[in-house]
């Protein structure tokens, strides 16, 4: 019961921030106040433990590229498809979601330009805070660069994520809404993140759960990711991860 109440409480607060029109303090996910009886570690300790838990700094930095593939399902609409993700250590990225009945939805960053392309709305180049958010998300080994990606990391509390205790870390960047990250107090793994996805259409509060961690080439990563919004849930099942595959520059360039 405590777990359900905790999740509902936080989601209820996030709902008020969903779809707001521009970044402001109200768009920042809210964290429960810290309990006086809980002794909290430093954010550096939490992040270091996380990096160690997923394979360590050396393992994360030795790779030059990553390719992921999997399936994706949107509920309650019942839309299904596949997802491919290409990324390189020079922080270029491409995500391709192929949905049944729709086609390919592309989202890329070529090191300078962040862009999207889909069969419904056509092509678009991102700007402003949306561009900055794309840059942040394209960071290849973001786990070892969290102190650079975020201007501050603050451990705020311990909360339940499922049946696990998790350190709640508020990750701030100037000009962008905060991310709230939840790390397992025992294993160190990231269990959940709360954030605001920025788009010209508005802002989307999203809670993401990371589950089914498995090791591939010395790096542990979640193989089931559930992104929840007030109205929808998107579940991604990762089926394959490959490191150091050759990915050409052209992969990251916006199609005409």
């Amino acid at each position: 019961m405590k777990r359900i109440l905790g999740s509902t409480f936080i989601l209820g607060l996030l709902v008020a921030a969903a779809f707001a029109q521009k970044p402001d303090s109200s768009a920042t996910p809210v964290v429960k106040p810290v309990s006086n009886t809980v002794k909290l570690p430093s954010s550096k300790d939490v992040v270091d433990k996380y990096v160690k838990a997923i394979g360590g700094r050396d393992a994360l930095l030795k790779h030059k590229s990553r390719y992921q593939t999997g399936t994706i399902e949107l509920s309650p609409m019942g839309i299904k498809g596949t997802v491919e993700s290409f990324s390189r250590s020079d922080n270029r990225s491409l995500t391709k979601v192929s949905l049944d009945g729709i086609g390919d939805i592309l989202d890329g960053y070529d090191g300078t330009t962040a862009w999207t392309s889909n069969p419904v709305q056509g092509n678009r180049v991102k700007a402003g805070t949306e561009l900055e958010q794309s840059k942040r998300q394209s960071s290849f080994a973001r786990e070892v660069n969290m102190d650079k990606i975020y201007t501050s990391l603050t451990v705020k509390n311990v909360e339940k994520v499922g049946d696990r205790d998790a350190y709640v870390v508020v990750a701030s960047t100037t000009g962008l809404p905060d991310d709230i990250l939840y790390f397992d107090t025992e294993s160190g793994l990231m269990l959940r993140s709360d954030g605001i996805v920025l788009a010209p259409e508005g802002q989307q509060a999203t809670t993401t759960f990371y589950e089914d961690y498995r090791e591939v080439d010395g790096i542990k990563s979640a193989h089931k990711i559930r992104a929840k919004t007030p109205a929808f849930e998107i579940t991604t099942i990762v089926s394959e991860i490959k490191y150091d595959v050759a990915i050409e520059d052209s992969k990251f360039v916006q199609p005409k």
Partner: protein
Amino acid sequence: MKMKQTFSRLLLTFLFVHIAFAVGFSQAPVPAAEFPKVRQETFDKVWNTINEKHYDPTFGGVDWIYIRELYLPKAKAAKSDQDFHNVLRQMLGELKLSHFNIFPPPPAIGTENDANASVGVELKWIGDHPIVFRVDAGSPAAGAGIKPGYVLNKVDGKLISETLKPIQESLAKRQVTEMMRRVYLERTAEAVIGGKPDAKVALEFLDGEDKPVAVELSRVKYTGEMSQALGNFPKQRVIFESRLLPENIGYIRFNMWVIPQAAKIRAAIREYASADGIIIDLRGNPGGVGGMAGGVAGLLSDKQISLGTMASRSGSMALLGYPQPEPFMKKIVVLTDHGSASTSEMFAVGMQENQRGKVIGETSAGAILLSVFDPLPTGYTFQYAISDYKSPKNILIEGRGVKPDREVVLTRESLLAGRDLQLDAAVTEIRKN
């Protein structure tokens, strides 16, 4: 390492499905459910979903708790599966909004068209009569000499007015707009003359002199393009027409906003790059994928264009069109009528209020909400709205419709004379300086 969170934005900004009328669904009854528990779960899911997700937490003044108390006994008393789902429909009807419905399970794969064979006529409700608006080239109706402007008078020997009497009475008790009333009557009349492929139907029309024209026609199965199912939203017919009118004006018509139409619309707009204007005919178009309205708007504007906002219980989101390379920047006219709904209304009012095009014809259906399709434990599908829609000038279109810049109504006389007054007015609008 985590997958990018941008999935949610990528997907959510354009996956909103707006369907005002269930044109693609079979209304055939299904066997009764054997387990009351399934019905209880279904009732709970429908009621709870509205309670938790309806975009208006006040339910438009409806006491939703009381509605449960009122309808649960009726649901428990239902003697058949069909009766049970009718109770659910009546319960949703208390909200007095579009985009809330319960649909039977789709037919088995390969049989989706079997109940929807037609003789090839499209009807419009004009002057309180079902009038032939279009006759498909090469169809049984065309072969029998049926022409636009004819009145459908009898089906299998029974007056259509008698056949439609129950729905007329039902509509009179419900708070539906005149636009929606006409749509329901048109769709019902078309359903009455449609049916299984190759089955014959005896029809009597009244010609231009009101003389009976009796024909016996074989229904023909639709063999044209179908869209893919979009999750729980079933596959739909893809009917597209484009041509260059003699006045050097492009004409584009499509039956629904479904994904395969996007490439066809884009290609047609590119093809008419040197035309003096483009007419986009959305008459009878019930909507479809909401994001497509922005996609087409982006082909017709050199700047980002807002088509309005959608407000859910938790906030609002804009619907935008992003300028695409070499947009068509000459005159645009959008044709609407009472059957233009949802995404069609969003596009029409967006063009109108951004002063990017004129709307000509009749007031649209006023049926525009953001909805999703969700399966129920009984196997039926539940459509419910999760947000409203307001135009770029913040006008609620639900129940109101899009008012045309120039109102032009169809008349039986003009159809008999081979003229489409609304299309003529659109041509005149583009030709004037």
